[in-house]
C-alpha cells in the first residue's frame, strides 16, 4: 500500500488540498498519509482534517501523524514538502527593512531581500529533511512546494542524490488566463513554456496551427484586459513573450517596475496590497482566518454537512503520483535540474519546464533554446540561486551578500554600500533564525 509523507503538514489548508487531490485519483483507493510537523497543535488540526476528508471521500486511506519525521519516513513512496520555517516571526522585517532602503517588494518570498532571507532561514531545515529522506526512503520522489522554490530545489539537487521536483501552478493558471484574454477554448490552445519558476515564458502559443500571439497583442490593446496584468503585457510588448507570474509578483523579478514611486503607482494601481508591506501586515491575520474557516468546515463535516470541496485541483502533485504509482503517463510542469534541457541556461541550475511522468519516474523534456532576451532575464536569477546554494553548502556569508547585490530590484534602487547595510540589518534583526555563519561578526 502506498505511503505518502507530508512534511510541514501543519500548513493544514495546503495539506488538505494535497490530500483531497490524492484521494481523487481514480483507482488509488487505499494508502497511508504520514503527516509530519514540528508544531503539535497545527499537526493535530491537520490530522483531524485529513481523517475527515478521507471519510467524506469514502476511501480506505489511513492517517499517521508525528512531530518526529525520522520515525515516519521509512517505507514512504512519496514525500511532499510544504514546510514554512519561522515565517510569522520574520515576515514583517522581510518587508519593512528593505522598504527603509527604498526596496518595495510585493510577495518577497522567492527573490529580493525577503526571498533571500527566507532561503537562509528555510534551507538548513530543508537540507536536513532531504538528508533524512536520502537515508530512510531514498527511492521516494520528493515533491517540493516550499519557497523559495528554485533555490530550494537546487539545494537538494546539489547536495543529495534524490529525485526532486518543485511544483507551482503559475504556468497552468496563466494558460487559462491567456485563453480567456483571447477568448479561445483552453482545451484547444497549445503552448510550450519554459524558463525558471515565476519567470517562465510562453514561447509557443497556438490553436489549430495559428500563432495566437497576434491575437494576444490585440487583446492587450483593450484597456479592460491590459489593466488586469499591466506588468506582464508590458514585458510582452518589450521582450516578445508572455510570462508566467502575476503582475504584482513578476514586477519584483525585473528592474523596471518598482524602482520609483511613480512606477509603482502606475503598475500596481489595481493591486494595492502589492506595495508598502501590505501583504506582510495581512499575512498573520489571513492565516488565523484560514484556520478558523478550516475548523468551521471540519465541525460542519462532523455534523454531517458537506463543507469540504472534494474536486481535484490543477496542482500537479497528485498527477505525479497517479502517473508514477499507476503508470498512467501524465505531462506536468516541474522545477528540475537543467542538465542541458534548456540549451542556453546554466546546465547545473534549476529550470521549469514540461516533464513526462510514468511508472519509471519523472522525465523532464528537452526544450531547446530560449530566445536570448528571455534567457538573459532568467540567467541572473539562476546565478543568484547558485550563490545562495553556495552560501549554505560552503557556509559562505559573502555569497549571500553578493546574491542580494545582483537582485534586479534591489540593484535598481540601492548602491552597493546600501545593499550591504541592508543585508547586515536584516541579518542582525533575524539573527535568532539564521545559520551561525550569516550572523554579523
Amino acid at each position: 500500500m502506498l505511503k505518502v509523507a507530508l512534511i510541514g503538514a501543519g500548513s493544514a489548508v495546503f495539506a488538505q488540498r494535497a490530500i483531497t487531490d490524492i484521494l481523487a485519483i481514480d483507482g488509488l483507493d487505499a494508502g497511508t498519509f504520514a503527516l509530519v510537523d514540528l508544531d503539535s497543535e497545527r499537526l493535530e488540526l491537520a490530522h483531524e482534517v485529513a481523517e475527515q476528508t478521507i471519510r467524506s471521500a469514502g476511501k480506505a486511506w489511513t492517517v499517521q501523524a508525528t512531530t518526529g519525521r525520522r520515525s515516519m519516513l521509512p517505507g514512504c513512496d512519496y514525500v511532499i514538502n510544504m514546510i514554512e520555517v519561522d515565517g510569522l516571526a520574520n515576515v514583517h522585517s522581510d518587508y519593512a527593512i528593505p522598504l527603509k532602503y527604498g526596496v518595495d517588494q510585493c510577495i518577497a518570498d522567492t527573490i529580493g531581500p525577503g526571498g533571500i532571507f527566507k532561503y537562509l532561514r528555510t534551507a538548513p531545515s530543508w537540507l536536513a529533511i532531504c538528508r533524512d529522506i536520502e537515508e530512510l526512503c531514498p527511492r521516494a520522489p520528493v515533491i517540493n512546494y516550499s519557497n523559495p522554490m528554485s533555490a530550494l530545489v537546487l539545494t537538494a539537487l546539489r547536495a543529495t542524490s534524490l529525485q526532486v521536483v518543485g511544483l507551482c501552478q503559475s504556468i497552468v493558471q496563466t494558460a487559462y488566463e491567456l485563453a480567456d484574454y483571447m477568448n479561445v477554448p483552453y482545451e484547444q490552445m497549445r503552448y510550450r513554456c519554459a524558463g525558471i519558476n515565476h519567470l517562465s515564458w510562453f514561447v509557443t502559443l497556438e490553436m489549430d496551427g495559428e500563432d495566437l500571439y497576434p491575437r494576444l497583442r490585440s487583446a492587450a490593446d483593450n484597456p479592460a484586459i491590459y489593466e488586469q496584468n499591466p506588468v506582464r503585457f508590458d514585458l510582452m510588448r518589450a521582450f516578445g513573450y508572455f510570462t508566467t507570474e502575476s503582475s504584482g509578483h513578476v514586477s519584483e523579478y525585473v528592474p523596471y517596475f518598482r524602482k520609483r514611486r511613480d512606477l509603482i503607482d502606475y503598475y500596481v494601481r489595481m493591486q494595492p496590497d502589492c506595495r508598502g508591506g501590505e501583504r506582510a501586515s495581512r499575512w498573520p491575520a489571513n492565516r488565523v482566518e484560514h484556520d478558523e474557516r478550516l475548523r468551521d468546515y471540519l465541525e460542519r463535516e462532523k455534523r454531517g454537512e458537506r463543507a469540504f470541496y472534494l474536486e481535484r485541483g490543477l496542482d500537479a502533485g497528485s498527477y505525479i503520483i497517479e502517473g508514477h504509482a499507476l503508470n498512467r503517463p501524465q505531462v506536468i510542469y516541474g522545477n528540475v535540474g537543467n542538465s542541458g534541457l534548456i540549451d542556453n541556461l546554466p546546465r547545473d541550475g534549476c529550470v521549469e519546464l514540461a516533464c513526462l511522468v510514468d511508472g519509471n519516474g519523472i522525465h523532464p523534456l528537452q526544450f531547446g533554446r530560449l530566445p536570448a532576451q528571455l534567457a538573459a532575464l532568467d540567467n541572473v536569477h539562476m546565478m543568484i540561486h547558485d550563490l545562495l546554494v553556495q552560501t549554505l553548502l560552503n557556509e559562505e556569508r559573502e555569497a549571500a551578500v553578493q546574491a542580494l547585490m545582483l537582485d534586479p530590484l534591489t540593484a535598481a534602487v540601492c548602491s552597493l554600500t546600501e545593499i550591504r547595510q541592508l543585508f547586515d540589518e536584516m541579518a542582525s534583526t533575524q539573527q535568532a533564525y539564521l545559520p551561525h555563519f550569516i550572523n554579523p561578526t
Partner: protein
Amino acid sequence: MADIVPYLERIRARFEQPDTRAAFQGFAKTIQFIFTDLHRNFALSIGKDGNAALTEETLPQSDIQVTTSSDTLAGILDRKVNPELAFVTRKLKASGKMEDLLKLQKLL
C-alpha cells in the same frame, strides 16, 4: 442549467445569521451576479447593518461583479465545484477592489 434563484436565496439567507451579519457589518456594498448561460442578472445589496436584499436587475454600477454560469455557482454552493478551481479556470470571474473580493470569499 440550474434554477439559480434558490441558490442566490441561500446566499442572501446567510445574512440572517448573526455571525454573517457581524462579519459584514459596515460593508455596504452591491454584488452584481451575471449568469452567462441564463442571460439574467441579479443584485445582492448588503446594508450597513449587515442585512442583504436580493433583486433581479442589472445595476448601472456595482462594487463587485461576479460573472459565471448557473451550474458553476450552484456547484460551488453544493460543494461539488471548488471555487478556487473555478476562479483559476475562469469559470467564475470576479472583479472589484481587492478588499471587497476578500470579503466575497467568505460568502462563496
